[in-house]
């Protein structure tokens, strides 16, 4: 339990850094780090296959998407960044305060969850679950990938035309 809390806290700090850092590139890297910590906690919660997916797709692919977007859009110059810095600080520095307050409030609250949990599942193999029990989700994934292909085709080709 303690280990999980520590990992979650690190994850939280990484998220905080992601939100508050000045450079957008560093922000994207912070997001990747959040992903890594999420992967680790998934391993701890005995979900290895999902963890592998998270590591490969989110940490890898999404970072690539963000970084390529950032390079395609030439963000503000350094001077402008410095100019905005003070303004940014005044807008952003409430966040840690809020987070600490919310975290404390919820941790100290005595919540009775009184939930009746279902009996544990018989099928423990992810592949079987996906293929046999949830084929509709798989079909959905295929359609979503097709959608993504058209999305990239349409949205990014426009940019090329310009």
């Amino acid at each position, binding site marked *: *339990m303690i280990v999980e*809390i520590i990992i*979650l806290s690190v994850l*939280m700090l990484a*998220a905080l850094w*992601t*939100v508050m850092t000045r450079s*957008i590139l560093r922000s*994207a890297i912070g*997001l990747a780090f959040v992903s890594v910590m*999420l992967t680790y*906690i*998934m391993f701890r*919660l*005995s*979900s290895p*296959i*999902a963890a592998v*997916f998270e590591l490969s*797709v*989110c940490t890898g*692919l*999404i970072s690539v*998407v*963000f970084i390529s*977007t*950032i390079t*395609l*859009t030439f*963000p503000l110059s350094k001077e402008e960044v410095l100019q905005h810095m003070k303004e940014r600080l005044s807008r952003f520095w*409430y966040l840690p305060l809020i*987070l600490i307050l*919310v*975290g404390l409030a*919820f*941790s100290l609250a005595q*919540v009775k*969850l009184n939930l009746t*949990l279902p009996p*544990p*599942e018989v*099928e*423990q*193999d*992810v592949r079987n*679950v*996906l293929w046999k029990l*949830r084929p509709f*989700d798989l079909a*959905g*994934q295929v359609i*979503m*990938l097709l*959608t*993504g292909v058209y*999305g*990239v085709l349409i*949205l*990014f080709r426009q*940019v090329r035309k310009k």
Partner: protein
Amino acid sequence: MTDPLALFWITCVFVIMLMIAGLYCIFVTYNLIRVLIGLELLIKAVTLLLVVAGYANNHLARSQAFVITLIVMEVIFIAVAAGIVIGLYYHNQSLDVRKLRNLKG
């Protein structure tokens, strides 16, 4: 082995904090890409919630199947959103969200 429900609740607190961070990012920033990063943080929070729910009620296989599907959806979603952000950049020559107020009333 600790009580799974206790772990679930503690993770819930972190999920809430993560969501607040993501929403705060969306509300406060003036940069379109940062808005997307905020959205990503929200989705990460949900992923965490799904995993820990599966862990707490011992339906790990199913929750992993959900998470895998969710990740696929998420990638496409972010890719499309990024495409739209790039399109907006080419029109406005900037990533400032304050230029997105053409449609109103």
